């Protein structure tokens, strides 16, 4: 289930943290989810590369304080738009599930 939403999670973490490298993205996900998402850390990197290829992120190399080369990712404008859309879809979905499980009255269809 988590895998299906990995892209959205990564985009949201980058949106919250600002430009960040892979390790910082993982830490941000852990922090914001209260440690609830326990996925292999390595899976974040292919997701970052995939999102960059899709034009949702861009990256640049810099030298960290440790002297090691570090790749820093930033959300692009397209990435920001994609996150807004995914958030809206997720909210609609979670509201529907919440209503279903909570047994509340069905909301009226705006259409």
């Amino acid at each position, binding site marked *: 289930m988590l*895998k299906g939403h*990995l892209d959205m999670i990564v985009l949201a973490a980058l949106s919250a943290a600002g430009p960040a*490298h*892979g*390790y910082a993205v993982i830490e941000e996900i852990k922090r914001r989810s209260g440690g609830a998402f326990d996925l*292999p*850390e*390595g*899976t974040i*990197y*292919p*997701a970052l*590369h*995939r999102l960059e*290829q*899709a034009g949702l992120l861009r990256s640049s190399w810099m030298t*960290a304080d*440790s002297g*090691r*080369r*570090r*790749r820093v990712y930033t959300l692009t404008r397209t990435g920001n738009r994609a996150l807004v859309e995914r958030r809206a879809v997720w909210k609609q979905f979670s509201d529907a599930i919440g209503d279903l499980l909570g047994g509340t009255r069905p909301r009226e269809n705006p259409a």
Partner: protein
Amino acid sequence: MIPDYLERLERELSFDRPLSRCVRQEVEDHLWEAVAADSTGNTLQAQRRAIANFGDARAIAAQFAMVSLARHSRRAGVAAVLIIAGVFIAMKARLAWYAAAQWVISEDMRAIGGLVGRIDRYAFWLSVIIGLGGWIYIRSRQIPAAFCPVYRSQLRRFFLLCSATAAALVVSVISDGVLTALLLHGTEMSAEFMIPIVSMTIEIGCVGIFVLQIRRVTQRAASTAALQKI
């Protein structure tokens, strides 16, 4: 311990050298940062934990292979468009040269020349339509996290479009070769021959590069599929 893990990851990604080098640097930074953040103070234990948290090298490589395959497929789509443009420019340059030098096909060969010219035209425009279609198709596909059946069939469709483009281009280039031979037939060898010969070489080279691109994508698809079988 971390260097061994990085070696393994790099080996698994050896089908894409630039990617493997880039991933190695990124993962190295991640693992050493995780070791530095470990509060136990035992470096060996910390390295072991960092690697375990990162995940199996082959599984990670399989996910990167998918990203690499998608990138190369998209690149092949762009290559199709550029190569068609290259063939078009070489063709037009040759025709302009024929017009400037006032070279025409001899009267007895004109009927064959007309037929070959029509085949050339249809084959070329067919390659333009299919090539553009292939590029738009692969560009509009989403890159999945895994080499799923849906993406496999999308890639198969793209491969068919690329093969059809290459086949149409081959027909067009062969027709160009025949037309060039008809024009040069009976003409005395001179330095002016260089222009049509060079432009034909460019066309043949363009088609060769495109065929190699298609082959590279199929090879990458095979290695990605192999990596998925963990």
